[in-house]
């Protein structure tokens, strides 16, 4: 029993990080109809930018960690806006394939930039431990403090995102824009502002995922965005592209499948990705619009 609980916790950690990336994919597709293939690399960038703040973080310094989080998030949000202006908006009226290629290339450029220009960027970088270490046991289940922090931050961010999109006027603008661009502009919604906010929000979430990844595994490497990007995209797709809750559900589902295969199938680790992606594909065969997608896929 405690084994199942422990594995559940492992899956929840993974799922939290996947979902944070998946939401961005969903947001971008929902509002702009684009699949932003460098989104995983944005997440990686978040982790590396956070590393620049390392000198101010002594182990578990609360203020240092907060500054690092906020600093990295803000910088990545701005970079996200910049990237959308560079490779996505100019191609809006071109065939989708162009956007796809452009975002793929942008991801490559980001990765190579880190690999070449970050000191020692080809190797894993040590990431600071920003949450208290240690933990406690209840009924044979060991819960680490960093896991609690990651979960708490994840849930808080999910709730905040849903609130922003559903309850604020900015969120209303995003939703209106995603349902009918022109009509929203006739009501006074600024297109460039919606795009900027969407990219800032999605990129900020990705940065958070990157930082959590860093502190959870205690290391980051320039290729980490490749995996999180592919998984985030898959998670958003089975959740129903455009749906935020869908992306969250998709992220956790992917993590549960992976972890279950590793944990409960003998020798399963080797096949965990194959099986997880396989299940995703099967899912899409039977529910092409994703778990929470409606007939035409609910948008944002």
């Amino acid at each position, binding site marked *: 029993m405690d*084994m199942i609980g*422990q*594995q559940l916790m*492992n*899956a929840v*950690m*993974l799922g939290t990080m996947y979902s944070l990336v998946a939401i961005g994919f969903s947001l971008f597709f929902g509002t702009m109809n684009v699949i932003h293939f460098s989104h995983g690399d944005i997440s990686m960038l978040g982790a590396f930018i956070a590393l620049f703040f390392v000198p101010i973080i002594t182990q578990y310094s609360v203020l240092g960690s907060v500054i690092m989080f906020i600093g990295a998030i803000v910088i990545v949000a701005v970079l996200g806006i910049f990237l959308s202006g*560079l*490779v996505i908006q*100019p*191609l809006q009226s071109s065939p989708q394939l*162009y956007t796809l*290629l*452009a975002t793929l*290339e*942008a991801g*490559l*450029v980001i990765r*190579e*930039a880190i690999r*070449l220009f970050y000191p020692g960027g*080809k*190797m*894993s970088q*040590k990431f600071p431990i920003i949450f208290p*270490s*240690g*933990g406690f046991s209840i009924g044979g289940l*060991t819960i*680490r403090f*960093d896991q609690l922090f990651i979960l708490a931050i994840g849930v808080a961010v999910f709730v905040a995102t849903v609130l922003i999109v559903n309850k604020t006027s900015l969120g209303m603008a995003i939703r209106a824009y995603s349902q009918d661009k022109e009509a929203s502009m006739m009501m006074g919604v600024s297109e460039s502002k919606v795009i900027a906010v969407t990219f800032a929000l999605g990129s900020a979430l990705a940065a958070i995922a990157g930082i959590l*990844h860093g502190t*959870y*595994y*205690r*290391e980051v490497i320039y*290729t*980490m965005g490749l*995996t999180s990007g592919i998984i985030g995209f898959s998670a958003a797709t089975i959740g129903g592209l455009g749906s935020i809750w869908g992306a969250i559900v998709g992220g956790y589902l992917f993590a549960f499948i*992976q*972890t279950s295969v*590793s*944990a409960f199938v003998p*020798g399963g*680790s*080797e096949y965990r*990705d194959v099986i997880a992606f396989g299940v995703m594909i099967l899912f899409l065969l039977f529910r092409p619009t994703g778990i929470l997608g409606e007939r035409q896929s609910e948008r944002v």
Partner: protein
Amino acid sequence: MKKMRTLFLPILVILALVISGCAVSPGSGSGNGSKKQTVKIAFIGPLTGGNSRIGLGGRNSARLAVYDANHNKNNKYHYELVEYDDENTTQAGNQVALKASSDPSVIGGIAHYGSVVALATVDTYHKAGFPTMIWGAVHPDITLGNDYKEIFRVPGTQIDQNKQAAEFVTKLGFKKVGVLYDTTDYGRGHFKYFKENLQKLGGQIVAEMPVQPDQQDLNAELTKIQAKKPDLIWFAGLAPEGVRVKKQMDAMNIKTQFMGVSGLVNEEYNSALGAEGSEGSLAIIDGAPTSSLPGGEKFMKDYKARKYSEAPEAYGPFAYVSTDLMIQAIEKVGPDRKKVTNWLDTKVKNIDSMIGKVTFNEHGQNDMPLFTPMVSQDGKWVPYAESEYQTGKRKLPGKK
């Protein structure tokens, strides 16, 4: 404005291609001042990436061998080392293997640290008739799994290594072993021979988890292993993955003893984990620590004198001896690939070298069953026998 932006895309694409294309860059050898005929030898290894410390240590050692040869007045030829980066990936490995072996001016190669890479390239060397000394890869099949005359290896194989590793583990009293191995031939090979030998000695594998070498999250696997309460967690893979395993063990507060294979003996392991994280980790290496090799002291002195910025690491001596043997062959029979291959194939019997005697068997494999268990102490790999763990001054973290 819009036009300007759309113009930017092709530029971006070109930039990206340029950046990704210039990853492979052969270096240059030592200077050439004499009137002797110049003979080129290739050095191939991971010069960048997570295993680059080992690669650069091997490269420096090969440079040292070339330097020594060029300063030996009796030598007929002047040698030049052509350096290639295999990035420890099969893709880059295949590219540089082809590049080196298809250049007729390069007579032979000192190649590869990664077994997976070496397994992928031996065919190329064989087809090109390119005599190759494997300096750091230990999978048995690289030499034993084929009849290629061109492939030689000074370091021992995984078979011998794991026989001794199992004996070491048993001697320390570890009986229940939880295993993580990477799913490459390298990891699988190690695990196969480790398991065989451990079971012969009465040990037990309580959990075995194959993981992909790039798998980031190992929490599920470690949770499962830990549930079996092993007294040793043994990992077969290279140092960057080993770092990942150990970091996650630490995060999960797993205090069980950790041990790796020869691929873990890389100072990168200690520096990535910090002295605190690496303290007490076990592993095993081919041969012996440089200082206790027959020619070890001279090697270290010469190596220091050359002021290389990287340490020779675990396989430096093997790279040196491999290069030296290649040069001896060329001195004897001239810069001719076929003749060099034949000489190495038939004449290397009980040859003295800085690591001791070298004898190539019918597979070109050195029969040298010498291995040394290592322990990480104060952020450095040291021979277990010379460590404070041996004297009892320190206790392995997993020992009660």
